[in-house]
């Protein structure tokens, strides 16, 4: 997958077969730490909320991704700053007070799903790009989200010791900390 056509910083080559385009869309997500960080924070929050919390939150996240496709035309490339800030907020919540209500978790998932897609598309118009690119982006976002939530949830449900929970919360604080720094670099 990673040997597919490289993504040219969200400009999307829009050439090649469906598979190449799909891989390009996925690679855009996997190669940009700014896009990865908030989703990782969300995945950690979900696992700290409930070890099997992904099942509850995932539909909202996907709904946000899909909603982001037609709405991307409304935003500029500055949306990445908003996305990073929300990611910092989610990382803080995950590290300090992860036991939220189900409604709050679903709202976080929906909002981050939406803004992640807006940030990945950076103003591209609705259906300006081949469908395979959109599918690749959605796949990439959800791959990272699900992998983080599942791996973290598995660790937390397997190792019940308090220090394991603390370690996951510390890693969540790292995502917030890194997010603050990357925000500053992009803001500069």
């Amino acid at each position, binding site marked *: 997958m990673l040997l597919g056509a490289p993504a040219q910083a969200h400009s999307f080559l829009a050439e090649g077969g469906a598979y190449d385009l799909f891989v390009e869309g996925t690679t855009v997500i996997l190669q940009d*730490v*700014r896009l990865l960080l908030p989703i990782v924070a969300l995945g950690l929050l979900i696992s700290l909320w409930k070890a099997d919390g992904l099942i509850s939150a995932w539909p909202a996240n996907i709904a946000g991704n899909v909603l982001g496709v037609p709405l991307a035309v409304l935003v500029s490339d500055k949306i990445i700053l908003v996305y990073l800030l929300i990611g910092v907020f989610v990382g803080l919540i995950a*590290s300090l007070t992860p036991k939220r209500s189900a409604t709050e978790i679903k709202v976080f998932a929906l909002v981050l799903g939406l803004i992640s897609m807006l940030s990945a598309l950076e103003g591209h118009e609705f259906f300006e790009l081949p469908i395979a690119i959109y599918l690749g982006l959605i796949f990439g976002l959800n791959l990272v989200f699900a992998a983080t939530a599942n791996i973290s949830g598995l660790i937390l449900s397997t190792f019940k010791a308090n220090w394991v929970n603390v370690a996951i*919360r510390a*890693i969540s604080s790292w995502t917030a900390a*890194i997010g603050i*720094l990357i925000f*500053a670099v992009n803001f500069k």
Partner: protein
Amino acid sequence: MLLVISLILSANMGFAHSGEGIDSGFESGFWHPILGWDHVVAMVAVGLWGAFLGSPAIFVLPIVFPIVMAFGGALGVIGVPIPFIETGIALSGVVLGLLILFAVKAPNYIAAIVVGIFAIFHGHAHGGELPEQFSAYGYSVGFVIGTGLLHSVGIGFGFLAQSPLGEKVVRIVGGVIAFVGAAFLFGFA
């Protein structure tokens, strides 16, 4: 533990912050807090003091510190000056070391404030020294992780304080940290 200490002490301090042999932003950021003794002693002290204070400080401090440190780092990145950065960094070793040496059991909010103030100094130093030739993103990831791992080392040592002999050892280590901090503060290191 003795093996770890000996390995640390035998490391070539001449490469501290020099970037020699560093090939990427992540490596540069990761080694930045680890190759600077002024950072190492303070980060380990945060973990030690947290373990010494017990729950919930043992996890609150290592969670709060990276976030506040990153805020200081952000100020450094965007060029907001903070005076007496190196003094603040050196002082952090002295103060945190003394807090451990004298087994000061501060309330959690006081501990968080003390740690937070010093975190800004350390973060600003890291952010302000962001190398131009490397990826800023990789550097950011590296130095947050490097700092977090140093806290973990401190927490690990801090668990020794659960026994009477271990507590004495931890307090002596606090004294050593304060001494190293003082060496930086008065220009001997």
